């Protein structure tokens, strides 16, 4: 578990990339996350998360097509690697396990309180 080092925000970004599939490039990821979190995010935070995860091997990327809207600059389309997906899966299982443990925990806390 320890070696994966996936932060909370990074996990959200990674999930968004996985969800968006072919549309997963910077602005779209930002838009999607903003609408889900109901909060504004900076380009910097998204980009640094993407770059960090690419370095860690959770993501790969390739250049997409250039559009007029972007002043002729190409998009970079991100995709999750299998390692990335494994880590996501791991996180999900971990959390599910913890969720299952909650009722007991809450009960005990009540007794203590």
């Amino acid at each position: 578990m320890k070696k994966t080092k996936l932060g909370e925000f990074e996990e959200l970004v990674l999930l968004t990339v996985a969800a968006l599939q072919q549309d997963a490039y910077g602005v779209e990821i930002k838009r999607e996350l903003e609408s889900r979190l109901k909060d504004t995010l900076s380009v910097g935070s998204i980009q640094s998360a993407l770059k960090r995860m690419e370095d860690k091997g959770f993501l790969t990327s390739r250049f997409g097509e250039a559009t007029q809207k972007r002043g002729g600059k190409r998009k970079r389309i991100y995709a999750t690697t299998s390692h990335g997906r494994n880590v996501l899966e791991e996180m999900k299982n971990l959390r599910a396990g913890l969720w299952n443990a909650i009722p007991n925990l809450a009960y005990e806390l009540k007794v203590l309180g």
Partner: protein
Amino acid sequence: MKPVQPPRWPLKFLRFFLKPEYLEEIEGDMEEIFLENTTRYSVRKANRMYAWEAIKLLRLSLIKNLAFLNQLKHVGMFRNYFKVSIRGLMKNPLSSFINIIGLSFAIGIFVFAYAFARWTFSTDQFHEHKYEVFLVTFTANRDGAEQLFGRTPRPVGELLKAEFPQIRNMCRVEDRRVIMKHADHVFHERMRFTDPSFLEMFTFPLKWGTATTLTDLNSIILSEPMAQKYFGEENPIGQSLRVIFSKDNSKEFKITGVAKEFPKALTIRFDFLINFENLRTADLDYKYDDWTAFVNATFIQVRQPSDIPLISQAMEKYKALQNEAVKEDWAISSFGFEPLATLHERSEYIRDDISRSSRDNYLSIMFLVGISIFLLALATFNYINIAIVTATRRLKEIGVRKCIGATRNTVTVQFLAENVVITFFALFVGVIFAYTFFIPGFEKLWSFNMDFNLLDPQLWIFLPLLLVMTSVVSGIYPSLYISKFQVVNILKGSVMFGKRNPLTKVLLGFQLVMACIFITTSIMFSQNNKYLSNRSWGYNKADALFAKVPDQAAYEQLSALMGQEPNVLSIAGSRDHVGKSHSTTVVHLPQREYEVDHLAIDANYFATLEIPLKAGRTFNDHEGSDRQAVIVNELLVKNLGWTDPVGQQFRMDSMSYEVIGVVKDFHNYSFSTVVAPTLFTLADKKDFRYVTLKARAGTELDTYRALEANWDKLFPEVPFDGSLQEDVWGIYFEQLGIYKLVWTVFASIAVTLATLGLYGMVRLNIEGRTKEFSIRKVMGAGLQNLTSSVTKPYAILFAITLVIGAPLGFAFGKWIIEFTYPYHMPITVSGVSLAVAIVILALAATVSTQIIKVLKANPVEGLKVE
């Protein structure tokens, strides 16, 4: 339509710091978001958002490796450079000493100039509402020129406050001289009558008490120095002070507040504050709605500085009201508003305003910066010269460094790094100089405190800048010069380094020229001081003394008592007094109007002060007969172009006057004030405010004591206010002394730097020629031969610098004396000749120490070198 483009600066910023491989993607993303934003918001907002996003992209994972991060791998090299430069410093203590001391003097003065500038620019900036508080001013045509006045017609303040909801606060300020009585002590004091909002508009927090108590007519608020003067360190709240406004008119006030110590740099301050309404008590004739009379100042505080144009527009009707009330002579052209934040810069150009001007300080800053740059240049030249000459010693080192792979750039960087080390030491010593010597010395001379603090964050931006600038300026040429040589030639030994670099001579010559200029100026200042202290004031100041009296009765009593003193030769009464006060009057001639200084005096006045008469007669001692007569000074005659002044007539205050006499020009105020056209009239006895006495020569001090004793006998309730006429210019002569001292300090530093530089040069030159001198001595050379061969390389240089330096020094000294003093000595070449003599002496002394060293040296030792 052209599509909207993202703003250029943030884009450049992005391109500068982002990793190039990420640039296309992120730039594209940013542009897409930007275009989307332009459809949603205004273009300006989108631009702002773009810039903000760009700043937020500054993240470690996105920025490229900056140059300095790359350099980290060179740390080892820099450590080596550092070690080499420390060893170099230790090995050549003489040149290190010259370099470091010279630079640190200059840096010390720079730091001092910085501290002074910071102090000046901070003036008044502590006021919380400095951008909302405005002084109401007006412009009026006087003597054919538009002038700005700081006082206000009395009703304006209240009318403005009532008319404009945008004006949050208004306060009027009226200063009056009063007598303050506490227990048995009486003092003359300056009382400020003001509206309670004064303490809201100006940020003067209280140490004790509450500011709102000023609404109470019986409250008085003190400044901290005044509280100390009357009550020492104890808290005086609740104590009372009796304020004597005039004879038989006084009022008891209760102290309800003491202000905290004022910040050091401010233009508006106060001693005592009482409610403005107290003017009714103080001055029974005071009318608040009188358009023909003025208050000293009116301040308004608006809600928004942008409200001012609106208020200005409405001032037209007040102008009409004002101009209806006053005579045509005093009509005003318009009202205006001066913001508090910049009042200290503008005060110089506002007449009769209550704030202090800082224009002199701005001049001083420029002067100081100029001087520090010159001194820094002198010190830098020393550094460059010594570096070039000593380069020979480092030839092998450079050769080896280049052999094992150093490029020219590496060597340049090495020398610059060494320079930073030296400058760093100099900076350290310089700050110590400034902190322990220049700043306290200057503060002591002018008796003020500029609140200099070593923890000031701006200082720590300034100092590194100074460090980098100085080390680059002084180091760039030597390091380029030294790194230039080919390694093969160095190691072959065929390079003759430094001996014949013409630049060293040019720089040395420049230093000597500067020394010439500084010394000449300092001598001229000291000569001029001597001249001014002996210059005649235009009347006999030595035997005269005077006292201020409150009214005619006091005058009669005091002059009757003084008349019995055997040493008093003559007594005069007057409304005004030379050196103390005068009024201003407009003279109406058929063809022109003319503003002059006006003194109202009695018939004995000229005889008492011995103001010499040039033509006509003085006033007769008959009450009434000379009521319409005036006596004028020579300048007034000259300016009006009268060939036959006696008998000329003109109108003044709607009465006709005739000139009966002309007196020689005299200095009413100190030599820093230009003599003004002046006229005298007879004063009404009921207006007498001064008693002037002439004592028998040599007894003026006894007479002064007698005057004071008589006063205390007559009026124990009123403090004595008089002095010897010689003291009437206050600290003028002390100030002259300070100018001289400042110039002497600068000149000494300049001469020291130049001679140090010369000493270093000659010394190194001789060391390099040890063998030559030894051979000469072995061959039988004597004093004459050795002297000529030591001096030869410098003789021509000295001659040239003196030929250039002397006239330059003369011209500069003449210019600065004429610029500083309206009255100065006739400028002669004596100052510059003395300066040249001093320079020659310094040169001779420097060179002769080296000649003696050569003479004493044992030639055998010299030949054994290497």
